[in-house]
């Protein structure tokens, strides 16, 4: 009997929603917008998070990045901390458990010439491990080798944008470009990598670390970022501690001084990013919860109007024998269904917006809608429908039949 009543109430609710098609749509607009907003924001953020995590995974979970830290306070005291090439050499010889260790020098912006063409590029000095770190695939030629580094060869691997800006041939291998005052031979062209967060990944020139050092005039300005990959992940903490101890000693830091460098594992990097993104998600979720609440109040308002409008209809139903719970269920179902439909429409629109936004921003990761977001928004819509539907439904159910029939 109860199931029967449910089905009949459901049917009546559906008919009533259909009978007021446009109004039903307007009624649920609040819910639609609310859910669309959550899904759009969440799908974009999740897409981003997914991609970032993937990129860090590319580094492997067993990598450590060492770089200098320049706090504002120290900078105004005129102290500039650096990781020097000597630090790098010390670490590469005195830390155990390292599989590979590679230095990265991000040079100042250089002007690079080829013939009459000039372009500004940030030239990076590194060794052959950078290919893995930077996720560089070679289209023509080859990447830097150990030998290039040791013999300080004047060679460079360039990105597609640089090739285009300099009007180099499609296969530029063998051409000579001029970086600052040095002639370098192009030995490789990297495959296109596109943009990440609006930054062009193809506007790059990579030269051997040794070469970079030798062409840098003032050695005191060199600041190296060190990328370490461990052989065994269980050694992570030991290696981290060892690096910190060695660097503190080398930098002559007193026990009370803070580190003037940062040793981060790839996991720490990932979790930093994830924390930021999670915060954004929560804030967006909060805003959306408020908008759903407003949407719910809108639903309640329209349902109350609808109950008043249909007072006579309710009176008729009661006169021919409708019990209170039957009327209650019909109206409750109506608001529940309205909200659920709104939630589903919002879901589709939100996903559409997310996918569209992700596609419109060049090289932005594809939007991803996680299951929890779908369940949460649909569940929340249903909850809103029930909570805000109760009052109008109870009002309808408790109408006095004779009063309701007299209602004009």
């Amino acid at each position, binding site marked *: *009997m109860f199931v*029967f*009543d449910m089905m*009949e109430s459901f049917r009546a609710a559906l*008919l*009533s929603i259909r*009978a007021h098609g446009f109004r039903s749509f307007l009624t649920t607009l609040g819910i639609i917008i609310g859910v669309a907003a959550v899904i759009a924001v969440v799908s974009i953020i999740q897409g981003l998070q997914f991609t970032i995590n993937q990129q860090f995974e590319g580094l492997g979970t067993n990598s450590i990045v060492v770089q200098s830290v320049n706090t504002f306070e120290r900078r105004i005291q005129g102290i500039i901390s650096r990781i020097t090439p000597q630090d790098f050499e010390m670490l590469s010889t005195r830390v155990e458990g390292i599989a590979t260790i590679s230095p990265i020098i991000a040079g100042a912006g250089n002007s690079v010439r080829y013939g009459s063409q000039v372009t500004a590029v940030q030239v990076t000095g590194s060794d052959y491990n950078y290919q893995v770190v930077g996720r560089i695939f070679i289209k023509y030629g080859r990447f830097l080798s150990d030998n290039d580094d040791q013999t300080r060869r004047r060679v460079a691997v360039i990105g597609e944008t640089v090739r285009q800006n300099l009007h180099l041939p499609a296969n530029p291998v063998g051409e000579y470009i001029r970086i600052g005052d040095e002639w370098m031979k192009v030995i490789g062209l990297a495959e296109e990598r596109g943009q990440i967060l609006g930054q062009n990944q193809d506007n790059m020139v990579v030269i051997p670390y040794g070469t970079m050092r030798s062409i840098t005039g003032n050695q005191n300005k060199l600041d190296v970022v060190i990328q370490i990959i461990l052989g065994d992940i269980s050694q992570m903490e030991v290696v981290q501690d060892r690096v910190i101890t060695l660097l503190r000693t080398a930098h002559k830091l007193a026990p009370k001084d803070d580190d003037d460098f940062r040793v981060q594992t790839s996991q720490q990097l990932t979790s930093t990013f994830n924390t930021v993104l999670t915060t954004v998600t929560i804030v967006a979720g909060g805003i959306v919860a408020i908008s759903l609440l407003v949407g719910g109040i809108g639903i309640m308002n329209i349902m109350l109007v609808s109950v008043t409008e249909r007072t*006579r*209809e309710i*009176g*008729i*139903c*009661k*006169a*021919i*024998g*409708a*019990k*209170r*719970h*039957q009327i209650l269920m019909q109206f409750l179902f109506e608001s529940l269904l309205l909200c659920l439909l709104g939630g589903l429409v919002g879901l589709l629109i939100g996903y559409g917006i997310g996918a569209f936004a992700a596609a419109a921003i060049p090289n932005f990761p594809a939007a991803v809608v996680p299951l929890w977001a779908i369940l949460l928004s649909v569940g929340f819509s249903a909850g809103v429908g029930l909570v805000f539907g109760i009052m109008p439904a109870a009002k309808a159910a408790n109408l006095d*039949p*004779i009063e309701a*029939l007299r209602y004009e």
Partner: protein
Amino acid sequence: MSLIQINNLVKEYVMGENILRALDGVNLGIERNDYVAITGTSGSGKSTMLNVLGCLDRPTSGNYVLNGKDVGHLDPDELAEIRNREIGFIFQSFNLLTRATALQNVMQPLVYQGVPLHERKRRAEEALNHVNLGNRMDHLPNQLSGGQRQRVAVARALVTKPSILLADEPTGNLDSRTTVEIMKLFDELHKQNQTIIIVTHEPEIANHCLRIVRLEDGRVAEDRRKS
């Protein structure tokens, strides 16, 4: 035992300071298969009386026993059940569900009884055929004439096979020709042993009935049986 037995029935309306007695101690018994007209001037309490008999309204005091059951102390849901199973109510203004077809309107009381769809449909079709509306089942109320609407209402009242049919000025909104049509229908139903009570202020209508109860200021002023 009478189908309906009311004793000392009082219905008061409280209007601010004043108390208005619409029914002032009515005693009445109605037998099965009777065909009763309740008449009286406007404001004499006819509709009030019928609403109480139809369990749409509750009396202020007095007893009402319907079909052996004291309905004076039932809660709203129990009253709904009585209205659904025991009573067929016909209104002056038809009171059909405007968004439902004739067939759906007639099916509606069976929904509240938990009758499955196909069975509901079958019985509603039967009831509509009974009132000669078999060819108008899928019409909405506003696609029907006044007389046809009232016949849909009669079918809706009959579909649950109620013990009693109550009609409050059923021809009040109809022209004279349609009135004749509807009264012929009531006469037929009576011949098929349906108990009927009709509220009317028109003597011609009352003349169709076997018994005429006249109300005056909320009291039974006259109760006579046609010879």
